C-alpha cells in the first residue's frame, strides 16, 4: 500500500481504539509517578531542605498507587480481551478511565496534603488530569473532572486553614498561609483549570469534527473509486463483444469478397479492421487498469518470485519483434536471484509494458537494454532504449492515464496511453517506485525500484 494511504488510515483510528490505547498510557505514566514519589522523599529531605516531609505517608501512598496500577493492568487486559472474543465494551472502558481519573485525583490530593498542602508547587499537576480528561472524555465529563479537581484542592486548602485537617508543612520555614493567600490560591487554581479545559475541549472538538469530515471524505473517495472501477469493467466488457463481431465481419468481407470488391475496398476494409483492433486493445488495457485498481483494495495473492528468472523467460516473447526491427536486445542480471513479493501476472505486465514500449518507440537498428541490479534491500530494473525519447515538457505526464507524448503519437498510431499508468499502479502497489529519464531523439530509460522480500 502506498505511503499516503497509510497516513490517512492512521488518522482514522476509531475512537474506541484511541480510548483503550490512551488508558494504556495512563498506566505507563503512573509507573513513572510511583518512581517519582519514591525519589522525591530522599531528594526533598537531603537536597532541598524539606526536613519535615512526611516520608512514611508518601511512601505508603506510592505503594498504594503501585498496587492500584497493578490492578489497572489486570483490568485493562480483561477489558481488551473479552471472554466472548468481541471488541472491548466502550462503556466499560470509559467507566474504567473515569475511575482511574477519580482515584488519581484523590491520591494526588493526599500527596499534596502530606507535603505542604497548597504551598506544594506540585499542585499544578491537576492541570495534567484536566487536559487528559478533555482529550479522552466527553466535554461534560471533562468539566466534571475540573470541578472535582477544584473541589478537592479547595477542600484541602480550607480544611487545613480552619484546622480540621492538620497541616504538614515541608519545613520549619513554611508558615501557615493567610486566609487571603488560601483564597488567591483557590482562585488561581480554579481559573487555570477552567481556562485550560475550555481551550483543550474546544480544540479537541474542532479536531474531532475535522476527523469526522476527513473520514467521510475518505469513504466517499473510496466509494467513487470502486464505482469507477466497476464502471470501467462493465463498459469494456460490454464494448468487447460488439467490437469482436465488427472485426470478424470486416475480416470475413475482405477474405470472402476480395475478388468482387477491388483492391482499394479491400485495403479500406483491412484498415477498418485494424482500427477495430486498436479499440479492442483499449478495452483490454482499461480492463487491466480497473482490475489492478481493485487488486489494490483486495490484496491479491502474492508469493516470492525470482524476477531474474521471470524476465529471462518473458523476454523471449519479444525476441521476434526486436529481430523484425533489427533491434539488439541486451539483458543483464545479477548473480543472485531477485526475490520480490508479488504475483506473476502483475510483474509480467510491468515487464511487457516497459519492454514493448522500448521496442515500439525505437527506430530500426537501435538498441534496447533490460537490466536488473541489486541495490541494498531493493531491486532495480532499468529498461533503456535508443528510441525517439520524450520531450522534457511531457516527462511529468508520462504515467497519467491516456497520456501519449506528441512525438510518440506521430511515430506510431498504436498505443492506448494506458500501459505506463497500469505499470505505475502495479509498481506502487508492490511498494516500489518508477521513474523515467529521457533525452529527445536519444532514448529513454525507465527505472523501477522494488523492495526485496
Amino acid at each position: 500500500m502506498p505511503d499516503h494511504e497509510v497516513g490517512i488510515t492512521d488518522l482514522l483510528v476509531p475512537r474506541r481504539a484511541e480510548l483503550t490505547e490512551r488508558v494504556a498510557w495512563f498506566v505507563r505514566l503512573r509507573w513513572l509517578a510511583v518512581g517519582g514519589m519514591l525519589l522525591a522523599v530522599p531528594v526533598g529531605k537531603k537536597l532541598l531542605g524539606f526536613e519535615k516531609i512526611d516520608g512514611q505517608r508518601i511512601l505508603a501512598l506510592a505503594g498504594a498507587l503501585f498496587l492500584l496500577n497493578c490492578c489497572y493492568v489486570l483490568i485493562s487486559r480483561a477489558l481488551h480481551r473479552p471472554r466472548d472474543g468481541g471488541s472491548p465494551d466502550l462503556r466499560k472502558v470509559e467507566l474504567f478511565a473515569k475511575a482511574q481519573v477519580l482515584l488519581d485525583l484523590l491520591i494526588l490530593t493526599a500527596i499534596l496534603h502530606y507535603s505542604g498542602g497548597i504551598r506544594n508547587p506540585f499542585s499544578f499537576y491537576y492541570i495534567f488530569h484536566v487536559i487528559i480528561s478533555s482529550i479522552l472524555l466527553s466535554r461534560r465529563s471533562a468539566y466534571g473532572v475540573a470541578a472535582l479537581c477544584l473541589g478537592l484542592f479547595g477542600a484541602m486548602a480550607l480544611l487545613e486553614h480552619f484546622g480540621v485537617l492538620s497541616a504538614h508543612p515541608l519545613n520549619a520555614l513554611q508558615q501557615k498561609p493567610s486566609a487571603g493567600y488560601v483564597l488567591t490560591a483557590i482562585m488561581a487554581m480554579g481559573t487555570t483549570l477552567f481556562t485550560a479545559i475550555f481551550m483543550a475541549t474546544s480544540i479537541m472538538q474542532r479536531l474531532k469534527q475535522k476527523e469526522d469530515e476527513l473520514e467521510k471524505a475518505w469513504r466517499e473517495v473510496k466509494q467513487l473509486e470502486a464505482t469507477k472501477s466497476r464502471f470501467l469493467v462493465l463498459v469494456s466488457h460490454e464494448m468487447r463483444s460488439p467490437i469482436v463481431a465488427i472485426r470478424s465481419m470486416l475480416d470475413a468481407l475482405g477474405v470472402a469478397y476480395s475478388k468482387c470488391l477491388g483492391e482499394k475496398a479491400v485495403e479500406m476494409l483491412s484498415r477498418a479492421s485494424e482500427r477495430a483492433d486498436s479499440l479492442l486493445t483499449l478495452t483490454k488495457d482499461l480492463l487491466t487498469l480497473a482490475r489492478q485498481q481493485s487488486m489494490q483494495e483486495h490484496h491479491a495473492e502474492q508469493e516470492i518470485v525470482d524476477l531474474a528468472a521471470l524476465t529471462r523467460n518473458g523476454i523471449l516473447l519479444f525476441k521476434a519483434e526486436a529481430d523484425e526491427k533489427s533491434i539488439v536486445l541486451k539483458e543483464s542480471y545479477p548473480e543472485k536471484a531477485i526475490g520480490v513479493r508479488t504475483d506473476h501476472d502483475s510483474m509480467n505486465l510491468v515487464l511487457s509494458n516497459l519492454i514493448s514500449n522500448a521496442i515500439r518507440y525505437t527506430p530500426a537498428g537501435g538498441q534496447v537494454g533490460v537490466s536488473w541490479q541489486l541495490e541494498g534491500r531493493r531491486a532495480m530494473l532499468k529498461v533503456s532504449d535508443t528510441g525517439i525519447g520524450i520531450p522534457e515538457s511531457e516527462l511529468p505526464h508520462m504515467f497519467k492515464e491516456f497520456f501519449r507524448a506528441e512525438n510518440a503519437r506521430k511515430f506510431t498510431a498504436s498505443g492506448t496511453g494506458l500501459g505506463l499508468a497500469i505499470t505505475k499502479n502495479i509498481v506502487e502497489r508492490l511498494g516500489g517506485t518508477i521513474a523515467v529519464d529521457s533525452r529527445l531523439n536519444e532514448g529513454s530509460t525507465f527505472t523501477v525500484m522494488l523492495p526485496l522480500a
Partner: protein
Amino acid sequence: MSKKVLIIDDDPDIVEAEKMILESHGYDVDSASDGESGLAKAEKTKPDLIILDVMMSTMDQGFQVAYKLKQSPDLKKIPVLMATSVGQVTKFKFDPKTDSDFLPVEAYIEKPIKPADLISTVERLLRA
C-alpha cells in the same frame, strides 16, 4: 467431398463471419446458437470439426458442451476448436496451457480470430 464444420456460438454476426470465411475456402458450414441445439446437431450431422464458443448465455456453457462432446462415444473423435475470450473478459481464470488436461479439446484460439489463423487451425485439426 467437402468437410463439414459446425459452429456453436450465440453471436449471429460472429457465426456469419466465420461461415463466410470457411465457405470461401470450400468448407460446408452449419451452425447452432446454443449448447443444446449444438449438441443435437452434432449428434445428427456428425461434423468433421466443431468450433465452440466458450461463453454463451451462461458463462461456462461452452465448457459444459465440450465435456458432453468428449464424453459421448459417438462424438468424442470429432476435433473441437474452442474460441475464447474468457481470459480477458472475466475474472474467471483460465489458461489453456495448464488447464487443457482436464478439458481435452484439440485447440484454443482467441477471439477475434484472424481469417488466416482460422483457416490454418482448421486445416491443421482436420489433417491430424
